[in-house]
């Protein structure tokens, strides 16, 4: 296994030596164009960051570090703090990941290892189709289907039947609109991303890898656990990061289900708020300058949160990959 290239890594493309010393005009134009494209992305990102931070500056200067720690959000008194939204964004996304990742991995393993050939295509297609459903449709489905089930079945089951109401995480009245509802809808929304990437990566595991494990006397379960999944680990984690990025920025469906309350509560039954939701909710009607600026500051914080969470996830992938190579 040592030295096996990670599936995501492509062999380096041949360098531009054929065009050295003046190739055809087409080659030069092509090279200039692709360079321009590559440069355009960081430039665009820099522009976005600059614009957001510039617009957020009045609020950041006024509230300073307190903007990150305060729970106040009072447009009438011009007091703004993003702590509940930062908490809600991170918790709902991480929770969604905890729910979705094992499920998505299970789907991917079934599709790549156990699924009869005739079923694989239609089933993969259906899972991928989950990604094509618009966010607002998820929100509506959540409001009219998921919330009643959560309120009448799942929440009483968790609180009473399992007796989890004694823990702070499942206490309080079960209204439906809650952090839990947001996490569940996010889990369903990011499932296709994680499972599609994982499936492709698992299918790319060489046949010899599987045969070697089986030849050693491994059962099918042992083969998947010890030979296939570890081989594809980096790629699977990549899929998980993709899902996480999607969850952090998701707006509409979350807004419709999370209850939109500026409050940090340990209970998953309590309503919460996310950074993306508050911008979507309030930006259109924010006429006051400081209010607009505070919303832009939420955007800037969301950028930072996304960067930090992605950084942690990348570091995780990197350390896993290094461990794998060692």
């Amino acid at each position, binding site marked *: 296994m040592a030295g096996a290239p990670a599936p995501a890594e492509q062999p380096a493309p041949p360098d531009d030596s054929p065009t050295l010393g003046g190739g055809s005009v*087409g080659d030069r*134009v*092509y090279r200039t*164009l692709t360079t*321009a*494209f590559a440069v*355009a992305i960081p*430039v*665009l990102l820099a*522009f976005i960051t600059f*614009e957001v931070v510039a617009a957020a500056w009045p609020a950041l200067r006024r509230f300073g570090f307190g903007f990150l720690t305060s729970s*106040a*959000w*009072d*447009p*009438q*008194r011009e007091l703004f703090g993003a702590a509940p939204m930062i908490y809600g964004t991170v918790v709902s996304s991480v929770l969604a990941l905890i729910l979705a990742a094992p499920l998505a991995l299970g789907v991917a393993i079934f599709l790549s290892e156990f699924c009869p050939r005739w079923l694989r295509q239609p089933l993969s297609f259906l899972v991928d189709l989950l990604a094509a459903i618009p966010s607002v449709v998820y929100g509506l489905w959540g*409001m*009219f289907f998921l*919330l*009643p089930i959560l*309120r009448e079945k799942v929440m009483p089951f968790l609180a009473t039947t399992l007796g989890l109401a004694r823990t702070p995480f499942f206490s309080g*009245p079960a*209204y*439906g*609109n809650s952090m839990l509802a947001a996490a569940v809808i996010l889990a369903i929304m990011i499932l296709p991303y994680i499972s599609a990437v994982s499936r492709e990566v698992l299918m790319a595991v060489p046949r010899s890898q599987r045969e070697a494990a089986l030849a050693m006397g491994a059962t099918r379960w042992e083969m998947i656990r010890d030979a296939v999944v570890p081989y594809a680990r980096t790629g699977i984690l990549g899929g998980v990061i993709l899902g996480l990025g999607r969850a952090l920025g998701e707006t509409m469906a979350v*807004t*419709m289900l999370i*209850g*939109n*309350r*500026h409050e940090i509560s340990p209970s998953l039954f309590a*309503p919460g708020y996310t950074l993306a*939701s508050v911008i*979507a*909710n*309030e*930006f*259109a*009607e*924010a*006429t006051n300058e400081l*209010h607009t600026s505070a919303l832009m500051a939420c955007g800037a914080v969301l950028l930072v949160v996304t960067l930090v969470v992605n950084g942690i996830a990348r570091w995780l992938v990197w350390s896993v990959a290094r461990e794998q190579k060692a």
Partner: protein
Amino acid sequence: MRSRAIALASLAAVLAACGGDRQAASDSTMPSSSGVDLNGAGATFPYPIYSKWFSDYAAATGVKINYQSIGSGGGIRQFSEGIVDFGASDGPMTDEEMTRTKHGSVLHFPTVLGAVVMTYNVAGLSAPLRLTGELIGDIFLGKVTKWNDARIAAVNPTLQLPAADILVVHRSDGSGTTYVFTDYLNSASPAWTLASGGPGRGKEVQWPVGLGGQGNEGVAGTVKQTPGSIGYVELAYAKQNSLAIAHVRNTAGEFVEPTIASITAAAEGVVAALPQDTDYRISIVNGPGAGGYPISSFTWLLVYSTPPDAAKGRKLVDFMRWMYSTGQQAAAALDYAPLPAALAERLTTRLGTIALNATP
């Protein structure tokens, strides 16, 4: 060859996206279709009646008016920056906002009346729930938390109220509906005002309790599904979705059902006492007058007193003249209350004060 063409095309797209962000943003608000005579933007609440007016008016006169319901805040912004020919808002512009307009002084013209109604989900009630302003205020402040609270029972002696918790549902998005509702509580519930430490009034306030629903549909959906909940929505929305609607006590002590007639009556009480030189930035919530529903409000068109383009200004004034006569008759069918006749007349006269001959 083909791939080169594609590459060039996508480069152009990238450059366009990089360079003209501001430009593109303002361009996208302009209609691309030719032949549009006037552009407006603003409130979503009166959008159904406005779009009917504009299509009826186009059919009658051929003058095309393009209206984008982007919200009152966006309407005020685009109007102040001179991007659109007229704005529309559910709440009047503040004095400070009025000093920051591109083309000088602004006139507010009320167009129709709307109302905010209390909708609730309490099983087994034999008659519509009755509420007072102080009671609604205390429920939304989290001071009254049970449906069988003695104070609710006192105004509903005939109802069998359950011992259930009250779940408050409010709008999470900034909205004119919230403005009207909090404007009413500000006037009817002493504990609601900023001065006494309450949430105050605005399109967004800090709610002491409850869940936030996105839009009228979010609030109504949550209330419909959740036993024990209470929320507020626009009258038109509540009627079209047959929600339970509470009767609210007015200043004359009557419990009034929100209807077209009771909303117009609420305006009549206020308009009768209006001074001649009013700028019409007036709130009619909790106003005087018998039979009036207390959570009623105007919605306004914003017009420059000296339109920068006189020809467009003339077209706008012609439309508004039509709106105050023929247009008012279309309102009730869409659950908006028409203006009292005397007010429509006064406003028609006021249209004459718009300067149409001056150069900008």
